[in-house]
């Protein structure tokens, strides 16, 4: 099966399993060596969490792209466009435009004010304990949702590679893959993680570029004929129009709005993205990183349009849906169609590295948040030394990892981009109002922050738990049960405005005033960079 295949037969995949796994295994081994080498310099907490703040803007920008272009972007969006046509493209646009919120309103101010975690900024001028605990809890929850999606993606991918289609086998795959990923984080810390992300970003964008050019070449570099072929294979001209997935009813149209809102407001509130701004030495480098990552991410999302419609035209929605891994297997199947087992092996290895890097970034964020915000600042009241803190962080990595593996087993089979959109909705509800208010609204108080964070987090989670995502439909996580009362699959349209409202209400009803001197300090620091954390020299 070398060269261009005439059709994709999933049964063929099994014959090439050995080759796929060979390429794949080689990749895992190489990244492991890199992580080991990078981890030699991990001495202090700043090393472990923030890579010594020693990365340049362009390195960090590439790493941000590596962090952000998760399995959701590659497997999820390609699959969504391949199956649902234009509605899948919405993910690409929302995920990209969202970066403007981060660039204009959050990145630099945050870099100037904080140290390791999102909670550093949010609790800067408010009461430490309640705000820090709330921020840490929401960080842990967002990371959990995001991790769950990545684990589900890893399960889809490896199941496809190994041709495993039964539930138990796929669960086992998720366990093994998850355990492997936890290892990387334990060993590598932020520096190892950052290098894996940089390498992975380069490989992913290069791999997607090759596949994009290949698909375009088949259609004479004419986007219109590619789209025409997608219509022909699907037998439905509506794949080019909005509404195939979300246009069915008034409820589903509202769901589309909700998704759009969550996507655009989620990015600037994702704790693992925010934490990356601390790995550079200055706010100017933070700005450079965002600019660099906007270009890389934008370019990649243009590729996903071609890849999605390419998979729709060349592989076909029915083949994708019936393959092990379902909708998430569109990109690997397209690779198999184009370049046979060699390209499939390469693309799968890249996709795996993608998941690995994102999982690593997420677990390290969650661990830092627990160890730094809850353990060091609240439980031991600032008395814990840095070594103990890093030790606690490492243990947290294991706990978070195990939880994500269990969650991933239940989420297996769902579109990864869809699952990630839930994490975006939770982040936008729980974190964004407080980030924006505390940076820009002088009057904002602790009560406002606490109301907004718990209100946003709580409402988002409750609405997801009682939505069709969890129960009530054949495609739900618990298909047998039906306790859904919220009709939308994304809670953003309710929970995000609610969190903004609660932040405002909590503040105006608060009789206490916050320290004006602290507010002045935060504002001056955030805009000028006075006293910001500097790079660590080795």
């Amino acid at each position, binding site marked *: 099966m070398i060269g261009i295949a005439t059709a994709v037969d999933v049964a063929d995949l099994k014959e090439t399993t050995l080759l796929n796994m060979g390429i794949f295994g080689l990749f895992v081994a190489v990244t492991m060596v890199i992580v080991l080498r990078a981890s030699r310099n991990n001495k202090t907490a700043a090393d472990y969490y923030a890579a010594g703040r020693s990365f340049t803007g362009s390195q960090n920008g590439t790493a941000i792209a590596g962090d952000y272009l998760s399995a959701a972007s590659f497997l999820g969006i390609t699959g969504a466009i391949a199956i649902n046509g234009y509605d899948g493209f919405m993910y690409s646009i929302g995920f990209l435009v969202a970066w403007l919120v981060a660039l204009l309103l959050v990145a630099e101010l945050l870099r100037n004010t904080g140290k390791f975690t999102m909670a550093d900024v949010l609790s800067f001028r408010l009461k430490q304990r309640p705000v820090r605990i709330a921020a840490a809890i929401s960080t842990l929850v967002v990371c959990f949702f995001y991790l769950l999606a990545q684990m589900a993606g890893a399960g889809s991918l490896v199941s496809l590679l190994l041709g495993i289609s039964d539930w138990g086998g796929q669960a086992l795959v998720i366990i093994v893959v998850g355990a492997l990923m936890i290892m990387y984080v334990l060993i590598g810390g932020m520096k190892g993680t950052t290098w894996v992300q940089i390498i992975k970003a380069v490989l992913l964008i290069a791999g997607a570029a090759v596949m994009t050019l290949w698909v375009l070449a088949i259609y004479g570099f004419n986007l219109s004929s590619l789209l025409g072929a997608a219509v022909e294979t699907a037998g439905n001209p509506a794949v*080019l129009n*909005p509404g195939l997935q979300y246009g069915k009813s008034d409820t589903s149209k509202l769901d589309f709005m909700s998704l759009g809102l969550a996507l655009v407001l989620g990015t600037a509130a994702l704790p693992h993205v925010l934490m990356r701004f601390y790995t550079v030495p200055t706010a100017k480098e933070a700005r450079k990183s965002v600019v660099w990552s906007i270009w890389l991410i934008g370019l990649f999302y243009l590729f996903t349009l071609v890849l999605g419609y390419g998979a729709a035209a060349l592989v076909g929605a029915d083949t994708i849906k019936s393959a092990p891994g379902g909708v998430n297997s569109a990109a690997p199947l397209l690779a198999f169609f184009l370049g046979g087992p060699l390209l499939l092996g390469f693309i799968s290895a890249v996709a795996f590295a993608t998941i690995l890097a994102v999982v690593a970034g997420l677990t390290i964020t969650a661990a830092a948040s627990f160890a730094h915000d809850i353990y060091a600042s609240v439980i031991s009241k600032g008395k814990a030394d840095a070594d103990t803190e890093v030790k606690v962080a490492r243990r947290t990595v294991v706990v978070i990892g195990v939880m994500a593996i269990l969650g991933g087993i239940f989420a297996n089979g769902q579109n990864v981009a869809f699952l990630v959109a839930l994490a975006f909705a939770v982040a936008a509800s729980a974190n964004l109002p407080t980030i924006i208010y505390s940076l820009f609204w002088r009057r904002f108080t602790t009560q406002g922050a606490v109301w907004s964070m718990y209100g946003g987090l709580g409402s988002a989670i409750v609405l997801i738990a009682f939505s069709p995502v969890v129960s009530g439909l054949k495609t739900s996580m618990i298909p047998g049960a039906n306790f859904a009362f919220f009709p939308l699959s994304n809670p953003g349209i309710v929970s995000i405005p609610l969190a903004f409202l609660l932040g405002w209400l909590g503040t105006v009803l608060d009789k206490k005033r916050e320290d004006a001197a602290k507010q002045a300090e935060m504002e001056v620091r955030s805009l000028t960079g006075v006293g910001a954390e*500097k790079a660590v020299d080795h």
Partner: protein
Amino acid sequence: MGNDAHTPDAAASVDFEQVQSTERFQELRKRHRSFVFPMAVAFLLWYFAYVLLADYAVEFMSTKVWGNINVGLILGLLQFVSTFAITGWYVSYSNRKLDPIAAEIRNEIEGHEFDKDGNAVSGVTK
């Protein structure tokens, strides 16, 4: 590296309220906000206009413009273009209007030992 919850006290003795009330700082604050707020409102309106069109004006979005390329696809790609454009605009604005003032204020506060933090500084502290 300290390990406590607060940021280190490199600038602990500074009277930030006094700095905040200076004209220079107020100017920096005004310049920053007068750019980022209107821009944020503009791109969010444009994005939601696009989402609403895709949601409720399916026929308009499905209008073919050139071959199989329809209005929806073109507007979607224009979202990419506007994102890149705003990014470029913001960077040039902050390099010209924000960084020099910020560096000036920072220098005044931290004294003149400023070598590590970015390039804008060297241009200002002559």
